[in-house]
């Protein structure tokens, strides 16, 4: 059913739920899992007006989030799931779409954070991915 699944995470608890769901699907279908956590220097975010939730997707300079991510990866590998890690520099949504395209993914999995309420018009990560993805997209209900 799936050969390659890409999941985006910022190491947050809600993103972790999406990663867990993606891992279950990967285990069930024998798919290879690619975990994408875009890296952007914190200073690049200042004053860009993109809002708090978008900023929360920025990993790399946040050691706590990175620790969460590394724990998640270790757990997945312990469960026997083939997992690749991608930490490209740049916008999270762009990075997820690009990794999905280059790895020829069948499915992108993301948490729903930012999809409801007033943030919905302003370009949350799942919203942006939903408009640009070149494969199927699972938005896991996390909020």
């Amino acid at each position, binding site marked *: *059913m799936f050969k390659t699944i890409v999941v985006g995470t910022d190491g947050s608890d809600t993103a972790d739920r999406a990663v867990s*769901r993606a891992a*279950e699907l990967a285990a*069930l*279908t024998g798919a290879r899992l690619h975990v994408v956590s875009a890296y952007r220097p914190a200073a690049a975010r200042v004053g860009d007006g993109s809002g708090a939730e978008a900023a929360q997707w920025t990993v790399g300079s946040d050691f706590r989030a990175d620790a969460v991510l590394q724990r998640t990866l270790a757990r997945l590998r312990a469960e026997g799931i083939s997992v690749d890690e991608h930490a490209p520099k740049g916008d999270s949504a762009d990075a997820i779409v690009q990794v999905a395209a280059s790895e020829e993914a069948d499915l992108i999995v993301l948490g*729903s954070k930012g*999809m*409801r309420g007033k943030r*919905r*018009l302003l370009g949350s990560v*799942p*919203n942006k991915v*939903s*408009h*640009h*993805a*070149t*494969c*199927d*997209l*699972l*938005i*896991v*209900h996390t909020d």
Partner: protein
Amino acid sequence: MLSTVAVGTDGSPTAAKAVEAAAEIAQRFDAKLVLLSACRNSRQPVTLGGRSEELQWVDNPDARMREMLSRTEEKLRERDIDCTSLIDDGDPGEVLSRLAAECNADLLVIGNRGMQRRVLGSVPNAVTHKAPCSVYVVKTT
């Protein structure tokens, strides 16, 4: 992991691909499948299931939708999928989200047609923002 999978359909080719993806997911998880449709003139949600003939009216555009649902249900049952349908009137994005809640869906499957225009108001876009559950957007375009 999944016990009820819902899928939005209007009988279009893009929706047919979404239904097929939903059917595969339902089979994989041994989940119930619920076909959801929005129409303009039905007075109340009606559960189809063997009663479709009684519900068809000549010259009623909804009758065609119901007939389509009934045919699709039948085909899916032949594949041993536990399948029902729900139909209601109103804005498709609202209706699909509401009916998904009504049938306690864990997952709502929808075709992506209209997503790349980036306009607000396409059905899949509305669903991704309003659904009470996880949403699976099938790439059909």
